[in-house]
């Protein structure tokens, strides 16, 4: 999950605006993103022993286009259309005790039952693990999945929860002040992954 200024609490946003963003290096180009997603789609189907009961759950925001693309790739090489849903974790976050207005809530869009499903949560960046913890809470409010695994484009370390991804695009070493920015054309217009740092 990348940096989302519009949803950050006001204090953070203010601090952010006062600092300069410096791009340190590009982690993935557009073509590399495409190849990584392609590889991940194949991995998911292989390691699941097929597409039976499989469903993808994209975590709002950037997990959504990623899960759509994965499903399309799966359809292209296997002919099977696996269900895709969207989950919004705002109501499940553990950090809402912050100054400023409450973040805007969005709806989930999961048109299928999660009971007995083999779910793969899809997100752009795995960092502390709190987002995924919240996503799992949300999914368990909807029913009882058979299995939940995680697929991420970037794993940047620094876990604060006992959470691991089964399907990883790239692992990257990062420091505390750095931010992994994922740009996807459906949301950001351009297509790449960069490592940025904040300097005063």
């Amino acid at each position, binding site marked *: *999950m990348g*940096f*989302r200024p519009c949803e*950050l*609490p006001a*204090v*953070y946003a203010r*601090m952010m605006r006062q600092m300069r963003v410096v791009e340190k290096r590009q982690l993935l180009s557009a073509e590399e993103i495409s190849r990584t997603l392609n590889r991940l789609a194949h991995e998911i189907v292989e390691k699941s022993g097929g597409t039976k009961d499989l469903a993808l759950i994209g975590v709002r925001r950037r997990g959504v286009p990623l899960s759509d693309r994965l499903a399309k790739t799966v359809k292209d090489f296997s002919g099977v259309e696996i269900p895709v849903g969207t989950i*919004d974790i705002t*109501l*499940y*976050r*553990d*950090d*809402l*005790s*912050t*100054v*400023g*207005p*409450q973040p*805007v*809530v*969005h*709806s*989930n869009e999961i048109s299928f039952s999660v009971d007995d499903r083999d779910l793969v949560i899809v997100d752009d*960046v*795995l*960092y*502390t693990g*709190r*987002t995924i913890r919240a996503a799992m*809470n949300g999914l*368990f*409010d*909807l*029913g009882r999945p058979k299995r939940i695994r995680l697929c991420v484009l970037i794993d940047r370390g620094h876990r*604060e929860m006992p959470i691991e991804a089964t399907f990883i695009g790239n692992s990257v070493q990062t420091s*505390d*002040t*750095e*931010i992994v920015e994922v740009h996807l054309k459906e949301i950001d217009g351009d297509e790449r992954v960069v490592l940025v740092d*904040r300097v005063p």
Partner: protein
Amino acid sequence: MLQRLEHLLGIEDLTREQISFILDQAKPFQEFQRHPLKKLATLRGKTVAIAFFENSTRTRISFATAAARLGADTMNLQAEASSLKKGESLLDTVRTLEAMRPDGLVIRHSSSGAPEFVANRLGVPVINAGDGTHEHPTQALLDALTIRDRKGQLEGWNLTILGDVLHSRVARSNIHLLSKFGVRITLCGPAMWVPRELETLAPNVRRVTRIEEALDGADVIIALRVQTERLHEPALAAEEYILRYQLTPQRLQLARPGALVLHPGPMIRGLEIDGAVADGPQSCVLEQVTNGLAIRMALLYHLVGGAAEPPPAKVPDKAQ
């Protein structure tokens, strides 16, 4: 960026944008009502005081359920049970509540202006659950959500409100809300309950006393509860009301085909509304109830959620 609401005292002072925001924010909570497990931790640790100085089971339960589903605790105050009956003033009752440090207060009171009175003196967000004959904002919001879901938008159609409009806070809030979206509003009922001055409440409001005239061209009809006995006023016989103003299936035909029928509840089948209409396909009363829960959850989430103290200084968003 939408101006953060501190209290919800009425619809009159809200903008179109604020109203649309609340309706949009109710949508995730509508979806939430369909989850098998309906319990969030979003407002865990928060306490919502629910102070109802007037009888109401439905609205009170709706707010209590909304708070509980968000994970908040509730403090319940009901007029008969409280020392209010013993002559304790509203101010003292509220100060007592405040000393128990709630994070928000939902208040229903028989005096118009009571929520404003309390909001000016307490340091917590206040939600008006109905004050005298002034406003009932959450009712208007849930009505608007119900209508918007069925019709697609809140502009460009005709509303008729039937009944005792003069004494109805529900009618006033609906008039304020829907007129902001350009809805054309017709008010209809016995003349002493629909005085001409009601037309000054908002633009595009007219009053008529013949139900046939009121229903002609109506896309949405709100039927109000009828109290035939009124303090300080001569009573109106129920039969008189039924004869001239009951919403029957025949009269409903005078409206546009598929016109929606709403009622704030509780309904008296056989008085202001015929049972067949109340239970018929055009009636939205059940959706109104569900939507009431969604609206109230959205309001509690935004008004009562959030903290008092500043967070510790961290730079990147560790919520990832």
